[in-house]
């Protein structure tokens, strides 16, 4: 029960920043959907919680934060590649700044509480 609650909290926390993580992994080099999942995992984000990256990629595309193109992959079928657009890069810069501010504020609140685990 406690584990489920913990996973749900993690999922909720991730929900607000997963779009930034996706932008971050395609800022230098374009990638297709699964390749982005792989890059997230390589950087330490093994599960993205409830939901999937696809609806989020759809929103990023609709908002013009990623540009897409189709290209052949190594030996496989043509894939849809995503890369951060100019406005996506701006959104990422602003988002990272906001994330750092919130993280620092939360850190300073949580650091004042003394944790005792029975």
């Amino acid at each position, binding site marked *: 029960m406690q584990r489920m609650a913990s996973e749900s909290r993690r999922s909720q926390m991730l929900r607000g920043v997963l779009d930034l993580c996706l932008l971050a992994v395609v800022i230098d080099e374009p990638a*297709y*959907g*699964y390749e982005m*999942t*792989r890059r997230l995992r390589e950087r330490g984000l093994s*599960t*993205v*919680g*409830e*939901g*999937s990256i*696809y*609806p*989020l990629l*759809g*929103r990023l*595309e*609709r908002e013009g934060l990623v540009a897409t*193109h*189709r290209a052949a*992959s190594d030996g*496989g*079928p043509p*894939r*849809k590649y995503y890369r951060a657009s100019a406005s996506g890069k701006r959104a990422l810069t602003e988002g990272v700044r906001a994330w750092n501010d919130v993280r620092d504020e939360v850190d300073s609140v949580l650091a004042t509480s003394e944790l005792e685990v029975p």
Partner: protein
Amino acid sequence: MPAFIEECRYEWKRLGVPNSMADEMAAELEADLAEAEVDGVSAAEILGESDPRRFAATWATERGLVAEPPPKKSRKGLWIGLGVGLVLVFVGLPAFALIGVGSGSVSTVNSLQPQRVRSVVIPNFIGMKACHASRIARESLLKVRRFPKSRCNAIVVAQRPTPHSLLQWPRGAHTIVKLQLRG
């Protein structure tokens, strides 16, 4: 995982997602799931969702391929609407009919009939060859401004209305898509 994708396709069709968009999303998902399987990554990890209908609907909505459902009207609003409707039926219609008889015209009665509208999400034609874009437009019941056949292989570099915009128009009328071609 073909069953999952088939369910997604069914849902996209039900929601009125254009075939070209549904094909694109299905192909993307299929290729990714196949590659994940080779890596030993479960489909559940990729999809994060066990209900294909909900997954498909969320994806299409986030892409802007499905209109957001209108906000639910309150019960109070419903009663007011019913009241106005009844007044129109019992007072408005006879009045309009009398006006129609007096002027020798029946067109006023026709104007009271609700107009049926079509909703279409404009596909993204940019990057496609002109003839291919034209074919997809026709599949979405859109008309494309004519271009010479010699430009069939020219590439679409811009379009109006813009991709993914939701258009509504009365049945019987047409929306013309203008393509800017290069090459």
